[in-house]
């Protein structure tokens, strides 16, 4: 169990990247990017975890009980918000692409013409 979360982070990264590389639809590609980004959450989470620790919220819990790391959780919060913004912008780009070239297939996009 001690190294399983790290291996899970690598697996999520690889499977997300595989989805992006073999994608045939831009919206599918964006969703695989979201899976790719979630690999960083797992890595950060497992770095800060302490066995038997409580959540770093001390409402009703005595200050001084062993708790998990709050700094990596703050980083994860930022990460999740950035994921939402990246997906929103990429979906808007995919919409414009479909409007102008009438296809959503990455393979059918020709190089810059003209």
């Amino acid at each position, binding site marked *: *169990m*001690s*190294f*399983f*979360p*790290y291996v899970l982070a*690598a697996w999520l*990264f*690889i499977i997300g*990247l*595989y989805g992006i*590389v*073999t994608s045939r639809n831009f919206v599918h590609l964006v969703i695989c990017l979201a899976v790719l980004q979630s690999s960083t959450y797992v890595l950060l989470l*497992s*770095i*800060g*975890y*302490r*066995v038997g*620790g409580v*959540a*770093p*919220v*001390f*409402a009703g819990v005595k*200050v*001084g009980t062993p*708790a*998990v*790391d*709050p*700094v*990596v*959780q*703050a980083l994860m*919060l*930022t990460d999740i*918000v*950035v994921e*939402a*913004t*990246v997906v*929103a*912008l990429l979906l*808007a*780009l995919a*919409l*414009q692409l479909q409007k102008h070239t009438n296809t959503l297939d990455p*393979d059918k996009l020709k190089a810059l013409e003209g």
Partner: protein
Amino acid sequence: MNRRTRLVFFLLSAAAFAGVYLWGLKGLPPVGHYRGPYGDVLNRVATYERHVTDVVTAVNFDYRGFDTLGEEFILFMSVVGGTVLLRRQREEEKSEHRDESLADQSPERQAPEASDATRVLTLALVGPLVVFGLYIVAHGQLTPGGGFQGGVVLATAPLLVYLAGNLKKFKQITSHTLVEVTEAVGAGGYLAIGFAGLILGGSYLRNVAALGKTGMINSGGTIALINLATGLEVAAGFVLLLYAFLEQTLEIRLRGGK
């Protein structure tokens, strides 16, 4: 390059990545044995120094407040970018008036009327949802929650109005200038609170407001204020994004069906 070459390239680099990653893993402690000093130091002093009980919010808005400022502006810029990308250009407006009759009057295109059960349930839930969102925003420094989480919960309240079929009301709520003003106030408010810290305390984003008693809702000084500003900004930003995505569909449905 064609698909096969791409796949082979990918498999090779995935193998190389796995190798380097496993080699780098040797330096990490096994999961569950957290070694680093910062987490323990913060857990011990945050409640005493800032009178807040949620250390993650304190880290987000006070100890690492500058990073959260950057993140909030990332959200702001992406809402601006999304709205710009999804705007209706002039030729689209002209062609829309022409093709509307062809595509939209077919029976599969008409969205079904919201049933009575849906309408009652969604409209009854709008009030509790707004209260719940405000509760999460306001109690960010006491219990898990905060500006971001509560802001997104608040932003889904107008969506319930759309699901209930009240299209005119939804358009009124989401396209109102107040939403844009709220977003600007939220983003600018964060900046302004930072400057107040600079003027009154000597460094940007220093916690200069009254710290209050631990466990009360006004504890934490500027943490509570920044929480509110972020909640406003995130809620208004997501409502704007929702409106940008739904704008065209809304116009068609308002013109055609009702």
